[in-house]
């Protein structure tokens, strides 16, 4: 698999993301935000975490107007697979490629810790190697991870199995972490080729560092 990893001023998870996909045996290529085209024959675009443009105005709001995002939007609209992690998730919601928005955490804190997540839907290209109801241990690190969507939008998400993950306890029961609507930690678009989540699977690749559950998640994209 060939994976393009985007890089904006302020991105800081691009090397971890490359490491993760290379560890899984894939080739990766960094793509600068000023590039107007994506590399040829890629299988996946990852918008990694960080603080693009210093989170000025709103997290992800400036990055979404970068030249490369035009290419990503047309790639996604043509069915290409896109994964946004943390700040990448914020950028994809700002770009309108994913529904909803990410607000400041309800407790106003930057939350950085390992967190259990419950797999809500796995009938998609991302979580198909995980079981429905399975609990994964993945680190989170964000200040603006409080997922908001209005009632009508939420009903659509639920009806179309677009809710990917919820913050949970060890048994998979939802827990309040940052104030997200029904503890949502990740969603996908209606056609299930664009995915976004606040937790960092690329930071959960080695048992010795606390968890290797990220491997199973990222392996999902393999055919």
């Amino acid at each position, binding site marked *: 698999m060939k994976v393009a990893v985007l890089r904006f001023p302020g991105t800081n998870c691009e090397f971890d993301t490359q490491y993760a996909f290379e560890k899984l045996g894939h080739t990766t290529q960094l793509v600068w935000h000023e590039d107007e085209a994506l590399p040829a024959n890629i299988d996946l675009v990852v918008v990694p975490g960080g603080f693009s443009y210093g989170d000025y105005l709103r997290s992800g709001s400036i990055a979404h107007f970068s030249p490369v995002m035009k290419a990503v939007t047309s790639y996604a609209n043509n069915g290409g697979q896109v994964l946004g992690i943390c700040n990448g998730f914020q950028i994809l919601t700002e770009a309108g490629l994913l529904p909803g928005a990410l607000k*400041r955490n309800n407790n106003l804190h930057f939350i950085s810790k390992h967190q259990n997540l419950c797999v809500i839907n796995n009938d998609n290209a991302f979580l198909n190697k995980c079981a429905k109801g399975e609990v994964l241990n993945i680190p989170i690190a964000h200040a603006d991870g409080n997922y908001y969507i*209005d009632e009508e939008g939420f009903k659509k998400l639920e009806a179309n199995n677009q809710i990917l993950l919820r913050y949970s306890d060890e048994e998979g029961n939802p827990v309040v972490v940052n104030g997200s609507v029904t503890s949502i930690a990740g969603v996908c678009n209606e056609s299930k080729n664009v995915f976004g989540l606040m937790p960092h699977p690329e930071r959960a690749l080695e048992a010795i560092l606390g968890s290797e559950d990220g491997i199973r998640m990222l392996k999902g994209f393999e055919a």
Partner: protein
Amino acid sequence: MTAIVNVFLKEGVLDPQGKAAHHALDSLGFTGVKDVRIGKQIILQLDTDDKAKAEAEVKEMCETLLANTVIEDYTIEIN
């Protein structure tokens, strides 16, 4: 002309910063506060004297960049 844009979280969208400030005011003895909303103000200097044109342009700026209308409302004041 100067455009003053105020951006606030929509009614019904919980404003955690406003809530925290409300609690703080309460604990300081300012008990008569019913609600606190915290937003941001963006001041734009425009090179036009046409108020209608300025208003239309700033509205487009708000819709495109300055506000995220999924969660935020905005007001525009042109002077």
